């Protein structure tokens, strides 16, 4: 009896410790980011840093304005959402409500596979197919652009939107739909007037999840966006918050390096905001 209790305690302690590892990592990363990101912001000045429109980190008179990166990240994410959400949403409705079980299982594994493809592969395909494609299709000098990044991101966020929306739609109680059908609504009316509103917090969560994936993606966008610190424009070469950190990190030094940490800190705040809104939607879904 006594040994068993000791064992219980031991196991309890072990699990607690393992749980704390995850929490500890988050705290450590947060603390590290804040400590290494703040000095450069203090030196450059918060307003100059966030709203400066020129980034020239190695010029003889260096300028550290990250407004182009912030705007590019916002526009790129917005574009990806604008393209990815309709596609993902309608796919989810179709898969959850209309598709035959056989088709659904095939499509579901295809979507899971899409989620599992490493981002560098998306980037590579984008670089070798999409970028030359945009160049010839739109007859522009070079295809590496915000548009290319938006297209890649739109495909990358599809799996999270489809899967989370689908789960939400499938969780809608059958009685709701039966009642609607019994009242004479057509199946399509039922799906869009009853099932979708009932699943709306889950669908909203899927969109937020997509935003999170799009804004945090570095590798794929770096390979297709051209990486020049321009203000965002559809056919221009642009640099995202993420790719700004990655592209200069390897050879950076001094204030340049510290400024890269500050960019990461800004990105971290964006992600925090997104996570907070995700929690908000999910909690609201539970209460509803």
């Amino acid at each position: 009896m006594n040994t068993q209790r000791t064992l219980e305690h031991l196991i309890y302690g072990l699990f607690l410790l393992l749980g704390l590892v995850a929490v500890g990592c988050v705290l450590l990363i947060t603390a590290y980011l804040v400590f290494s990101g703040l000095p450069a912001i203090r030196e450059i000045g918060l307003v100059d840093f966030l709203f400066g429109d020129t980034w020239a980190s190695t010029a003889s008179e260096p300028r550290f304005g990250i407004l182009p990166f912030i705007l590019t990240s916002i526009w790129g994410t917005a574009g990806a959402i604008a393209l990815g959400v309709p596609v993902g949403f309608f796919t989810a409705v179709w898969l959850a409500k209309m598709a035959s079980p056989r088709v659904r299982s095939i499509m579901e594994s295809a979507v899971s596979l899409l989620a599992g493809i490493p981002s560098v592969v998306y980037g590579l395909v984008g670089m070798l197919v999409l970028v030359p494609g945009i160049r010839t299709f739109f007859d522009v000098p070079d295809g590496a652009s915000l548009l290319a990044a938006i297209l890649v991101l739109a495909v990358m966020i599809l799996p999270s939107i489809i899967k989370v929306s689908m789960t939400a739609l499938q969780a809608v109680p059958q009685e709701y739909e039966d009642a609607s059908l019994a009242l004479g609504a057509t199946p399509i009316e039922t799906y869009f007037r009853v099932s979708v509103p009932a699943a709306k917090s889950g669908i909203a969560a899927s969109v937020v999840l997509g935003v999170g994936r799009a804004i945090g993606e570095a590798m794929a966008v770096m390979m297709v966006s051209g990486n020049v610190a321009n203000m965002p424009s559809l056919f221009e070469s642009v640099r995202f918050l993420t790719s700004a950190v990655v592209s200069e990190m390897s050879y950076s030094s001094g204030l340049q390096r510290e400024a890269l940490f500050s960019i990461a800190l800004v990105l971290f705040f964006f992600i925090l905001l997104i996570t907070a809104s995700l929690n908000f939607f999910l909690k609201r879904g539970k209460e509803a």
Partner: protein
Amino acid sequence: MKRSFPALVLAALVAFAAPAHAKPLSGTVSTDGSTSMEKVIGSLGEAFENEHRKVKFTYNPTGSGAGIAAVKEGRCDIGLASRALKEKEKSSGLKATVLAYDGIALIVNPKNPVKDLSLADIAKIYTGEVANWKEVGGQDSAIVLIGREAGSGTRDGFESVTKTKDACKYRQELTSTGDVITTVSQNPAAIGYASLASVKKSVRALTVDGVAPSEESVKDGSYKVQRPFVLVTVEGKELAPAAKGFFDYITSPAASRIISAAGAVAAH
């Protein structure tokens, strides 16, 4: 300190293959200077340390100017500069020994009819003054400028040779030589620069002022887009035994393979 893995492996192999010296050297060898030389001097330092276990090699990446100042003030054994010494620096009692040359090839798509550019044309192209290939004898299409990210040694080298520092109007800033080559190989209107050692068949290297880039033309100086990697020492001052050993080692023919693995053309 960052070094490319293949270079490291090769450096280690070369070091193990070389016969050990009879009398073991000990002490420290401190180097200070050019960030562009990081890869070359890092691989050499690693190889030397492997050969002489008691020697500690240090490298302080500060920049050519700072490295020259450091060796002059006796704060390091060997200064590293990725440019030739100025007359003023030479007359102040410093001695320059060229370790290697860093050749940078200008690459275009094989479909591009342009075969040769002058150094002045290259500068004009990269600053945006010349924006169409037809102005330099090519087809009527906009020139797409491909470059490297800020902080890259190749970018720094290219911009200092063409005197276009902070003035280049890049269309794309890529983070590796491989990306530059891939991008140029896909866009008939693109021009890029890449370290000579890594140029592949998928792109064509331009001749500059009529001279094709090659190990020979870089070595004899006829190919212009290059810069020397210089070891700076104080004239008439004897180096400490460990530093002397390192100096002799890296300027010996045996080190040339390590230098080429790190992407430069050995001078000795």
